[in-house]
């Protein structure tokens, strides 16, 4: 589809319009960077306006946000810790999105993944730590995978809208967690905050050497890389992208759309479940109501901001982890409610979605529409 003239075995230096091929290559790809970046800036500008209207200084806000998120080694570690579950929660949105599904109930998979991991961790206590941690990871992934995989199955085999069903299932998952944590799985010693029995220290996941950030960050980054390879470099990913573009075309081609949808949603849920397992094994030490901390919802924003590209999720999750981390400092230093961060996230989200309308509208990003300045229009 490109107009690049390719000689036999020779890399093309110039495109059909006479511009350097590298320039055309860059222009085609620049769109996916420039538009989200511009949207991010517009979103921040809108928040500035909002903050100025309520009588605070936008400059101080962004300065505080920077300081709270990335200003010191301490705050960077805090941001990275928050980014870890966001990476996995965002994959729970991004993978189904490549198939054209909008799944927004990752919170449910996180919660159930955490509960399943905690239950297995307690049940297997006494076994070698390597086996227990592995079993916890598998249990978390299985619980989350079944939960979101069911959403995908309902979508394909019963045509149940996945957006609504996944969110309803998130509410059901939270109720299920409360029931389990207050009932059969409750540690009698947890009085004020019903929790499962605490994991023994040898079954906890520690920090990356030299940092105050747990291994979940590495797990999340690896999951993003694997997801990228899956989508871009394997035939399943290729099939998924076709099905996401046009389901009927995919079926005509003989692709098994059903297993593809169930597989992708189950994998997506599995990643979210893994996030829940990491919260239990690395942060909380037991499963309790803190598992529903909203990572599933921020993950939606991360995935949309990254345009469902697993590689782009990594920087976006770190950015939003930083914004999240600065919430406390904003509250203390500027006397603004902690919901300021939510308002900013909502604004960025709206602007990002709005920016979709600009794709393909700018000539600068489309070399096919370029004309040589030294030739009459249409002559090239």
């Amino acid at each position, binding site marked *: 589809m490109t107009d690049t003239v390719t000689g036999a075995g020779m890399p093309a230096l110039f495109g059909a319009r006479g511009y350097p091929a590298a320039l055309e290559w860059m222009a085609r790809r620049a769109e996916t960077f420039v538009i989200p970046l511009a949207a991010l800036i517009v979103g921040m500008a809108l928040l500035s306006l909002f903050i100025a209207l309520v009588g605070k200084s936008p400059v101080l806000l962004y300065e505080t946000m920077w300081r709270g998120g990335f200003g010191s080694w301490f705050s960077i570690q805090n941001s990275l810790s928050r980014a870890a579950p966001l990476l996995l929660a965002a994959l729970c949105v991004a993978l189904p999105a490549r198939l054209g599904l909008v799944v927004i109930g990752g919170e449910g998979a996180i919660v159930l993944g955490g509960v399943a991991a905690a239950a297995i961790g307690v049940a297997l206590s006494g076994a070698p730590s390597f086996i227990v941690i592995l079993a916890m990871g598998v249990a978390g992934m299985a619980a989350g995978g079944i939960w979101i995989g069911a959403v995908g199955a309902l979508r394909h085999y019963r045509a149940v809208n996945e957006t609504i069903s996944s969110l309803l299932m998130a*509410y059901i998952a939270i*109720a299920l967690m409360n029931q389990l944590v207050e009932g059969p799985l409750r540690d009698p010693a947890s009085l004020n905050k019903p929790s499962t029995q605490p994991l023994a220290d040898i079954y906890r996941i520690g920090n990356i050497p030299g940092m105050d950030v747990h291994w979940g960050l590495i797990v999340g980054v690896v999951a993003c890389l694997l997801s990228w390879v899956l989508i871009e470099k394997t035939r399943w990913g290729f099939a998924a992208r076709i099905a996401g573009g046009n389901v009927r075309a995919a079926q005509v081609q003989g692709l098994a759309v059903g297993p593809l949808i169930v597989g992708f949603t189950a994998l997506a849920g599995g990643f979210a479940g893994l996030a829940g397992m990491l919260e239990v094994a690395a942060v909380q030490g037991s499963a309790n109501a803190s598992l529903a901390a909203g990572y599933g919802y921020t993950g939606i924003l991360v995935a*949309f901001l990254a345009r469902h590209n697993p590689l782009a999720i990594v920087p976006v999750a770190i950015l939003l982890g930083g914004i999240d981390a600065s919430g406390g400092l904003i509250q203390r230093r500027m006397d603004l409610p902690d*919901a300021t961060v939510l308002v900013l996230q909502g604004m960025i989200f709206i602007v990002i*979605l709005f920016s*979709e309308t600009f*794709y393909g509208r700018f000539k600068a990003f489309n070399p096919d529409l370029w004309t040589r300045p030294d030739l009459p229009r249409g002559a090239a």
Partner: protein
Amino acid sequence: MDATEIGLWGVPLAILGGAIRVSTPFIFVSLGEAITERSGRINLGLEGTLVFGAMTAYAIAVMTGSPWLGLVAAAGAGLCFGLFHGWICKFPKVNDIAIGIALMLFGSGLAFFFGKPFIKPKAPNLPAIPFGGWSDVPQVQAALDVNVLFLIGAVLSVVLWWAFRNTRAGLIVRVVGDSSDAARAMGLNPNTVRLLATGVGGALAGIGGAYLSLYYPGSWTERISSGQGLMAVALVIFARWNPLGCFAAALLFGGAGALGPALQSVGVTQGYYLFYAAPYILTLIIMIATSSPTRSLAGAPGELSITK
């Protein structure tokens, strides 16, 4: 109040009373969403509108002392959210479902932002009409204490049902919802009709929010809504976009929501959280039962992305 006096009769009575109390926000949000969806768009952001409406109503009622002014303000705020959704979705490639999710986040965030100072003060409540005065049993009186908004909602659902069939405006909304091309051929601008339909839908959702903060549960907290705005969207599908069906479905959901507290009042505490999840489970079961992969839903507006 001790339910043991009237024994297990307390359970159906509490469910009836609960259905009337809990269903009112469902009625308003689902009627609003029915209007929006009939015009061919879906607004998932009503959840955020509901929360923002609840905050606005409470704040205005605290400041002015009048719950009615609070109600009007909530409707106005909801109108603004709806109009914003309607406006932004007219641009090509802007996805109405995704914008709804963003507005859900934004509306709640904005409500928490401005609502912080109003968590403590007490606002005057919307009045209720005691239909249970004939009975001496306190449970009966409590169950039949009906808020005026419930009655307005009941009347509104009948009016809307009639209006969709018999008025010019109702016909216009239905035409736009069924086929943009047909509407354009008739000289109608689909975007304008959808803008107004989403605006009205938002205003109704704002009123639903006002009911939450000004009557039941009757206070402003950050957890005032537990997904009612979202369940209402599912409820509209179940009700086949029929306002009378919305009213009936809302009562059903209200009853399901009241099941947990009703059982608790007679001493059944086992599985409390699972009963709490009853409305969500009910919604899901209904969605599974009424969807079909092979045929489109009866009565579904043709332009609706969710059923395509």
